[in-house]
């Protein structure tokens, strides 16, 4: 996709966060990075076409908490969720949030690209 919308990377783990930003920039996707859900909420005003790439397990506010909070504020964004392992309760909450995709660490970059492409194709259809 030419000029894809930005991806907001919300991940407490520095190594993962910076590597994802480097990769996405290398394939022409603009990114912004946030080390916590709280720091994202502080700066996010809503009404932006973007996608979240968010870790579920984070100290403080979790990725799930963040997605639910955005829903409450009616500023929900499409989201790709990442996690190490997920318990049944979190999976149930995730289902209700209908994320674009789900990546279990360590995931392959191919999976991430495939989810992004699916998202871009829905945007293309919307634009047409």
């Amino acid at each position: 996709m030419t000029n894809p919308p930005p991806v907001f990377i919300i991940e407490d783990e520095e190594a993962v966060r910076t590597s994802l930003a480097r990769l996405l920039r290398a394939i022409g996707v603009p990114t912004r990075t946030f080390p916590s859900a709280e720091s994202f909420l502080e700066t996010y005003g809503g009404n932006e076409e973007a996608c979240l790439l968010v870790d579920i397990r984070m100290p403080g506010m979790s990725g799930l908490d963040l997605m639910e909070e955005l829903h409450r504020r009616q500023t929900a964004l499409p989201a790709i969720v990442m996690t190490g392992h997920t318990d049944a309760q979190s999976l149930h909450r995730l289902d209700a949030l209908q994320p674009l995709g789900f990546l279990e660490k360590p995931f392959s970059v191919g999976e991430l690209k495939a989810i992004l492409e699916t998202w871009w194709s829905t945007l293309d259809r919307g634009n047409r």
Partner: protein
Amino acid sequence: MATACAATAFLAGVSFEPSTSMQVIVASLPLMVAYAIAVVLASNRSGRLARQRRLAMEQTVALREQLAHTARVGTLDEMAAGLAHELNQPLTAIHVEASAGSELAAAGDSDGVRECLSRISGQSLRAGDIVRRMRTFARRGEFQRELLDMGQLVNDVLALLDHELRLSGINTTVSRGEYVPPVMVDRIEIQQVLVNLIRNAIEAMAKPSIALRRLTIRMEAWHGRVRVSISDTGGGIDPAILGRLFHPFQSTRPTGLGLGLSICQTLIETHGGRIGAEPQPGRGAMFFFDLPAAGGTPS
């Protein structure tokens, strides 16, 4: 032969002259034989007792080592999800950096590629460190004392528990007195005590109602000993169980056998140390242990 007989008979309480007739010798033969048998039996018996004592001691040591090892494996099992997550972070970063590197190479950005390679190198070392620490902790080894620095032991354990501490939003402070002498200890067993006490502290601060989550580890020289205290800002210790805190099968958890603190006590006492707790009402709990200070410089 006569001298030997005389000596034996004398020892057996029979007066005996070497010059007396053959009759006397023959008459006293059964007594001498009985004595000889008694001596042999007695020496055999004391040998057997010593052997039994040694065997019992060896068995006690082996049992203690086995119990400590079983507890460590149990702790690692509880920590497995967190450690897997911890290991997945560098693995994810390595894979993503490698993909980014190949994109950058295709674009001819050699500085970018170098940056990716250096990140990959760092993250693979990090993954190796995690595996090494886990393996050391789970090792089933013979009790082996080394001259060690308590600060290093604390650092190793904090690295092992980093994920749990971070995810629980706990602020950790480590402080050490001006001079903390080395200790002569088994590395794994003291790490086990530290892991146990710190994980208890993490659990004590897990309740959502606890806003301030601070773990303070303090090391100091204390009357020829090294004293380590671990304080949390959790709910404190129930006064009702304070007296039997270190007894086996005391647990406030729904899962777990409640052997953790009793094993800690055994391990510390094996090292000639003492362990205890202070309830610190309204301020959380403090556990402490001390170990004899060793001379010299840790390797």
